[in-house]
């Protein structure tokens, strides 16, 4: 299946840091297809966080093109980007980034609020997403009443609730022990098996090994791009 979901051409991002011009991305080209499970690797400073922000539509490139699901994202303004993030991208963060005073259910409802889904439908979708990650019995718990693995699963449920084109995970196991990390990887595996496109940024080789394709960045360019034989 060669249905392109991400098309990146000559993606460049420069920052002005004081007097110095930092060139975080120096022309990245890549394509990611529907239902791929991709890990983006690279040492710190390789530009993988910047690329992640670009793919997540949190940042716009200095130069180059970014097409997401047929939309040219690289030229969009703030509000349009917010809409794209809401519809097309599900974020999973290293530090979970759940709202501390809100219940698991309410955390998962968050993207639906911004999608304009209201009332019962919203709660139904949210509890559906929570049961997809095996947390239907933790709906009313607050983040501090949940274990690290459970918190990350709430975050995954939140990422999935709007049925995004891509699940974008930034070091999803960075704050978890190895057993819990495996548990989360199993969840990713299952989601991928259900057809979810997953892009995961990590610096851990054993976590990247779960992906079916590994893109390595170095000095703001794609260094290697290897597909695992199925």
């Amino acid at each position, binding site marked *: 299946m060669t249905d392109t979901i991400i098309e990146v051409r000559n993606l460049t991002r420069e920052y002005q840091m004081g007097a110095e011009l930092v060139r975080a991305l120096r022309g990245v080209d890549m394509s990611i297809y529907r239902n791929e499970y991709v890990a983006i690797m690279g040492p710190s400073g390789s530009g993988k966080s910047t690329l992640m*922000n670009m793919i*997540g539509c*949190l*940042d716009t490139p200095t130069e180059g093109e970014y097409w997401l699901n047929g939309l040219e994202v690289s030229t969009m303004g*703030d*509000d349009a980007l*917010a*809409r794209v*993030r*809401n*519809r097309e991208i599900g*974020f999973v*963060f290293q530090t979970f*980034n759940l*709202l501390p*005073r*809100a219940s698991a259910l309410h955390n998962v409802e*968050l*993207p639906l*609020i*911004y*999608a*304009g889904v*209201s009332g019962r439908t919203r709660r139904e979708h949210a509890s559906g997403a929570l049961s997809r990650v095996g947390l239907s019995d933790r709906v009313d718990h607050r983040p501090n009443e949940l274990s690290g693995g459970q918190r990350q699963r709430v975050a995954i449920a*939140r990422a999935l609730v*709007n049925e995004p084109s891509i699940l974008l995970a930034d070091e999803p196991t960075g704050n978890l022990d190895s057993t819990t990390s495996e548990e989360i990887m199993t969840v990713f595996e299952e989601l991928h098996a259900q057809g979810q496109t997953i892009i995961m940024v990590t610096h851990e080789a054993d976590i990247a090994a779960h992906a079916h394709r590994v893109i390595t960045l170095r000095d703001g360019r794609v260094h290697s791009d290897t597909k695992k034989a199925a």
Partner: protein
Amino acid sequence: MRLSAIPEGAAIALDAIRANKLRSGLTILGIVIGVSTVMAMASIVQGIRGQIFETLEIVGPTTFRVLRFFSTTPLNPDALPREVRIRPVLSPEDAEAMQDLPEINYSAIWVGLFERLAYDRTRTQLLVVYGADPRFMEVLGGDIIEGRTFTPTEARAGTPVVVLEREAADRLFGRENSMGKVIRVGGRPFRIVGIYREPDNIFQPPGQDIAAIVPFRAAERNFRYDETNSLVILVKPRTGISVDVAMDAATLELRRIRKLKPGDPNTFDMITSDQILGLFNRLTGVFFLVMIVLSSVALMVGGIGVMAIMMVSVTQRTREIGVRKAMGATRREILWQFLVEAATLTLLGGALGITLGLGAGEVLKNVMGFTTGVPIWSAVTATAVSIAIGLIFGLLPASRASKLDPVEALRYE
């Protein structure tokens, strides 16, 4: 979308308030004080207005007054301006002349005095004593509960008789029967012929209730008083005659007996209840304006407090803002969220202030004997103003929140 953000924003706000009870409490204190001040002031002014209205209602909205000179402040009787000095002092004959007019139902000259009452060894402080005419109840209201009012003969002769107000009678005599006894009014002997009961809600400064009424002629004979400020002729038109018509007739009659030529200015002033009310409204208007300015200072301070706390809140929740943006919140939605939060905070302060103000109003009502409550419009205004303060002072923090860069915000520790 924006409407659905209100309950969401309010829930977030209440959550944040619960989490920082003391901080939020101190933040909204200024709003609470400001709003309750406005409410209490509104109820005072409303209460006084109510009493003025009631008094004028008793006196009758059609009753008008003839004065030697109408001034908003009492004139110094020892240094009268020339324009006053050339005017004749009001006399019982003026009142009688108007009484004879077909348009007039009641016309009598009154003098207001402050005198001590004494019986045996009991002595009161200075109390209000009116020198009036036997039909004084038609103007003051109330009724005779014992004995009688003085007769027209006593009135004409200036017989030293007195109708004592019930409270003054209680003070002087206790349970003892007072009828027929001779008391001293300002040192002069007066015989009690009746006991009068004041109407309940008559507007009087505390301690200045009417204590006694004596015939005008008796007052004239026994007491010294200031002829400009103390004398007034109260005039009531006949039923079916408008105040304007009656005033015209009274003016013509007074001009006639004072032998004024056409073109000469009047040597007296006439004022209606409406004019007194208008004067009162002007005075309370100024008072109210001052109060509103003062309490808006409190509200401003409160608003600045809210702004400061919202700034802190935005900084503390930078990450939350980043997450919300990552989840698809637009700038406008973040702006709206924080505005709703600020408005919730100030609305809460407003509600507390309204409760406090209502309480204070209730206390004032009992202490000062007002019959009217706190006006609804003041509660409505207070609510609207608190929300507006939240929106205005929340704007800066909220716009700062909305402009945060999501990448930076998510990285914020």
